[in-house]
């Protein structure tokens, strides 16, 4: 099991892993009249190591919210703090570096880079975050070993789907992030494998001290999380916010 370094544990303990206030963001287009949807989230907080399910139908803004949290999109209003840092106060390379170091991301299709081995995919995350080069290989190897990958030098294209998912989890945890964002990580799996995958992600984040924000439109996932919120899409002119 990989545990965060003591100093990082102290930082994580001092601030919520995620804190959102008065978030508003217009996105997409309504198929009917072409009006934009609006994401309106008055408040959301995630303690260090805490895990939360973000449920909702397709188009409800789950992935958009994750991209806002990751700093890939800029909100129209409101505040998003990750590990105490106002993400959108950072600009350019500073924001990218912060994302690389503090936020891990897991995707439905894993988004591993073909042409690279399993361990290289994990090391890429550490390279992106400018972590000391000497740490890359030993930490990546330890993470993969802990997640049950016994052939880390194998190209990812030759790994099974289950193994690819483990590599994706290892990559998300490579930089000891305060927060892991998992975007529909089980959407393409059958129920049994989906349950196993979520168990793996959940346990890995817990073992590594990372808070976890998972999106899913699968109702079966809801029971696995003590905390959950549901997002619903609304048109921008709709006066009621539907985040509950």
């Amino acid at each position, binding site marked *: 099991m990989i545990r965060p370094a003591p100093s990082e544990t102290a930082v994580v303990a001092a601030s919520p892993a995620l804190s959102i206030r008065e978030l508003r963001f217009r996105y997409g287009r309504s198929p009917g009249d072409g009006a934009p949807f609006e994401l309106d989230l008055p408040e959301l907080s995630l303690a260090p190591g805490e895990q939360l399910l973000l449920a909702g139908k*397709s*188009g*409800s803004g*789950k*992935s*958009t919210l994750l*991209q806002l949290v*990751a700093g*890939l*999109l800029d909100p129209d209003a409101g505040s998003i703090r990750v590990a105490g840092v106002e993400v959108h106060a950072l600009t*350019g*390379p500073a924001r*990218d*570096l912060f*994302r*690389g*170091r503090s936020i891990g*991301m897991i*995707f*439905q*299709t894993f*988004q591993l*880079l*073909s*042409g*690279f081995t399993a361990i*290289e995919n994990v*090391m*890429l*995350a*550490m*390279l*992106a*975050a400018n972590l000391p*080069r000497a740490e*890359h290989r030993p930490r990546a190897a330890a993470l993969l070993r802990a997640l049950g990958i016994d052939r880390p030098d194998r190209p990812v294209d030759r790994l099974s789907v289950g193994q690819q998912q483990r590599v994706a989890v290892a*990559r998300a945890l490579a*930089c000891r992030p305060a927060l892991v964002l998992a*975007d*529909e990580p089980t*959407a393409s799996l059958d129920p049994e494998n989906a349950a196993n995958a979520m168990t793996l992600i959940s346990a890995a984040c817990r073992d590594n001290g990372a808070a976890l924000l998972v999106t899913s439109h699968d109702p079966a996932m809801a029971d696995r999380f003590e905390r959950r919120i549901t997002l619903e899409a609304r048109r921008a002119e709709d006066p009621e916010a539907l985040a509950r």
Partner: protein
Amino acid sequence: MTDFSIVIRSLFARRTLTLLTVATVAVAAGLMLVLLTLRDAGADAFRRGPGTTHLYVAAEPSPLTAVLNGIFYANPPRNAMPWAKYRQIAESFPWEWAIPTQLGDSYRGMPVVATTRDFLTRFQPDLSGRWRFAEGRPFEANFEVVLGAEAARRSRLKLGDAIILTHGSPGSRGGDVEHHSHEHDEFPYLVVGILEPTGTPHDRALFTDLESSWILHAHDRRHHADPSVTMTALEDLLDEDRLITGIMLRLPTRPGSNVSPAMQQQFDALRRDTSIAVAQPEQQIDRLFAIVGSIDRLFIALAATTLVGGAISILLVMTGAMELRRRQIAVLRVLGFSRPRIFSLVVTESAVIGLLGAAAGVVLGVLGMVIASEALRSTLGLVIPAEPRLPWILIVSACTVALAALAGIAPALTAYRQPVAGGLRGVD
């Protein structure tokens, strides 16, 4: 794992396209290198040819023809001068040296220069030094011959070998060797010396004494008049046998200088004689370069265009690759790569293609130079080194990499501007 590893992996992932692009760039860079090197080497070879000769006199129709035929052995001279003309010119001024030459005979297509020992002891083929003998010595007696370095290489002759010269050369008097040349097997020549290479046209010539050549031609005359004549000696020579085709002249100069203040005066004085063409070889070579200069520039422009074409192919390949790599770029951005870092990855990738192309181009350039120098040696007799020059290698390589990097800017900007969300599938 470094940023450069990502670049290399990316190139390797589409290796067929990478190889084709590298090959395109390599051909362009190689062509550019060959042309630039050939241009310089050719110019040097031409400039070295006259060596320490200040003036060249021949009975040719123009000074340029005189220099091309008399010094660069382009064709055997068509007209000869009597020995008396040499005496007259040699005694008209206190020259540092006046060396008579006679061309017209050949050995296996290589020109034979009949001259005096001064040619090998006082004339210098290159301003930087005298002749150096790889083996043997200058000719001293009649029917001794010294081989230029290239002539020795091509003929594989060695010291002590006896050779039979051909009266007439390929290309002489219309080039009809069958009708105008014949071998003098009555007069074998002994190889007594082999010269070191000089990088001049003299390397592919053979050198012997004037009297032997005169005897050869006197024998022709006598045998034609009386077929029972089997041998001719020095005493049989008539004035009409004592012919030369050129005179190399050098004016006195101060030590360490190649310039004489009396040059123009003597040049003008000699030109008053309308039976001869007087040439300042350096001027004639400049004239020749002026004539071929536009062709030379055209070739360089063509090569540069090819190089730009190579850069455009990089641009197209990289632009095409950007479409295929939208996901990869998006993932790298998610992992923490900044836009400038992505931009530099793409430009580096493009520059690496240029670098590989330049490296392969240097190899192609060397091969091209070997082929070109051999072709020039065998067809024009120009001896030029086959190695591309280091400054051109560096300049062509730097230009290739710079152009390639430049070609990478547009696709790098595409990558720079690419929104992350659009590059990731499965985003709702």
